[in-house]
């Protein structure tokens, strides 16, 4: 399990949209990760109806990028949640939805500025969102992106090695 940090040191997923090839493998592996069996073929053939990808690939023309919960420091979904299901963990900074408490009122969906919470209607209505694969060293979408369009790092590293290499060079400003 990866180290837990306060919010500023928190590792987040960043996207290099110029290298997202729109393959949607991030979505597929996210679904597998959140399936019961965690086996890709079984998950899709038998559990498919229950699992939504928590990362969404947006596409316009040849531009595409994958977006998932930003785990905002002032998470509006947490504020809006009427049942206390949506919480931001003080240690890890990860915003998660407690499915037992969630009543499916969709208040969080209304306020999320990124549109990355989805309605899971397969059983009891619950909000479905990215949990940053907290039990993995690196979130599965990042691990399985074939073109390294997704990067998992903290803000400092992001600034040192700015996302969006224009020249293929390391550490270029």
């Amino acid at each position, binding site marked *: 399990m990866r180290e837990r940090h306060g919010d500023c040191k928190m590792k987040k997923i960043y996207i*290099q949209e*110029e*290298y*997202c*090839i*729109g*393959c*949607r*493998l991030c979505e*597929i*592996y996210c679904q597998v990760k959140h399936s019961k069996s965690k086996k*890709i*073929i079984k998950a*899709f*053939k038998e559990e498919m109806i229950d699992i939504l990808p928590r990362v969404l690939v947006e596409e316009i023309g*040849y531009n595409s990028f994958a977006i998932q919960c930003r785990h905002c420091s002032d998470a509006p979904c947490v504020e809006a949640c009427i049942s206390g299901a949506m919480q931001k963990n003080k240690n890890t900074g990860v915003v998660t939805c407690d499915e037992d408490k969630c009543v499916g009122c969709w208040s969080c969906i209304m306020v999320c500025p990124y549109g990355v919470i989805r309605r899971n209607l397969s059983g009891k209505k619950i909000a479905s969102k990215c949990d940053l694969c907290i039990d993995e060293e690196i979130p599965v979408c990042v691990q*399985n992106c*074939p*073109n*390294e*369009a997704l990067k998992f790092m903290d803000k400092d590293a992001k600034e040192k090695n700015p996302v969006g*290499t*224009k*020249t*293929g*060079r390391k550490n*270029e400003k």
Partner: protein
Amino acid sequence: MALELKQSEFEIERDKNKCISCEVCVRQCSNDVHEYDSDQDTLYSDNSKCVGCRRCETLCPTGALKIRNREDQFKTNYNWTSSHLSNIYRQADSGGVLLTGMGSDRAHTVYWDHILFNAAQVTNPSIDPLREPMEIRTFIGRKPERLDFEINRNKDSKESLKDTNIKLKTKVPPQLDLSTPIMFSAMSYGSVSLNVCKSLAAAASEFGTYYNTGEGGLHKDLYGYAKNTIVQVASGRYGVDVDYLNKGAAVEIKIGQGAKPGIGGHLPGEKVTGDISNTRMIPEGTDAISPAPHHDIYSIEDLAQLIYALKEATNWLKPVGVKVSAVHNIAPIASGIVRAGADFVTIDGLRGGTGAAPQIIRDNVGIPIELAIASVDERLREEGIRYRSSIIAAGSIRSSADVIKAIALGADAVYIGTAALVAIGCHLCQKCYTGKCNWGIATQDPYLTKRLNPEIGTRKLLNLLRGWSLEIKEMLGGAGINAIESLKSNREHLRGINLNDRELAVLGIKHAGEAW
């Protein structure tokens, strides 16, 4: 419309038990082979459109796809092979010249595979490159005929050497300094994507070697790598001006290319858009035609004029070389080029790659690079002018063994093109000329070019250079040699296998089993 008689070359097998209908294959194939039917929740594939690039097979997350060569396309016939039949069917439909990409796939003799390298035993010790110094640094450029020194001896001193001041008087002509005898061959921005150029340039500069712009000018995003850039001047002179010449570390005049000796190039107007038109310095939408000859070069004397004009334009600060394809009279041609003042001669062999060439030329014109290097090195030595030029071998260098054999045959360094592209994903489908490269290499389609992340490309190329360099050191050490210089043209370290007397004579090597 009459039925097309050409048959599919590939057969796509999709394992229904594994396929999860994720449509990754649908999204990855630029040839629209796969199609998802939502009514049936099934995928269909059109074999006839598949070019065998294996992009879908590689990205399928469940391993459900297999792309198989169809060997039983036609009734077996050793004379009228499937490729002859397919080509005739294609031409009967199109009436045109058949185009292709990459190097020849015909079963020409690959001499590398008939040459074996030596190792030291008992009589001379082998060297462990991990523990002892091993030099593979190489210099490309004209070497002085001899060295003159200025020696000032302090007469009163008893310790003669210590108080002697020795200075090199000879002016050494400009050299390229390679940390490994491997460079990236000319691949123009236009024939490959900018992300490919960035990967090559960044890897060359990080490793301390060179990449070559090809005939496409120098994109401004690559200016930062100028110190590791060889700028090319080809018959179309696209993107060439005095700034371009001075940006590079060396200038290469391109006369010919191994895949298409005697043939020019043609980048259709549709592809000359925005950045490409700027970089090539031609208006958008105009065809970029590279004539077959340089229209100002009809003799060695004309070539000499261009060489000296370029030296003058670059203040005599940069090596100026000439690239030719390996043709039948390559030895005297190379001799002429050296006498015309070239600081290096690049020879590109029969199996060299290309972005687009007529298939008939690619497969039938020119000679293998192994024979060309051997005969050129031999001829230049005979004439006593070998020191005046470095020889760079190109045209299908597939491994570090090929590099070391090329050097032992007489080359100073090699260029790799195809091997570099393979390192960043090329699967040799030979469809580069269609501009639909699924690996994001030989294409300008923004949907496809982003498939090559230059950060990954650079890393892979660096790894390739590192791996090959280590292997070269291992092989040198095994043969008891501690500097690549000592291997140059040292053909005693090579032996032929399954070669006839003529072949051995041209290569200048003994047959395996023959000792001195």
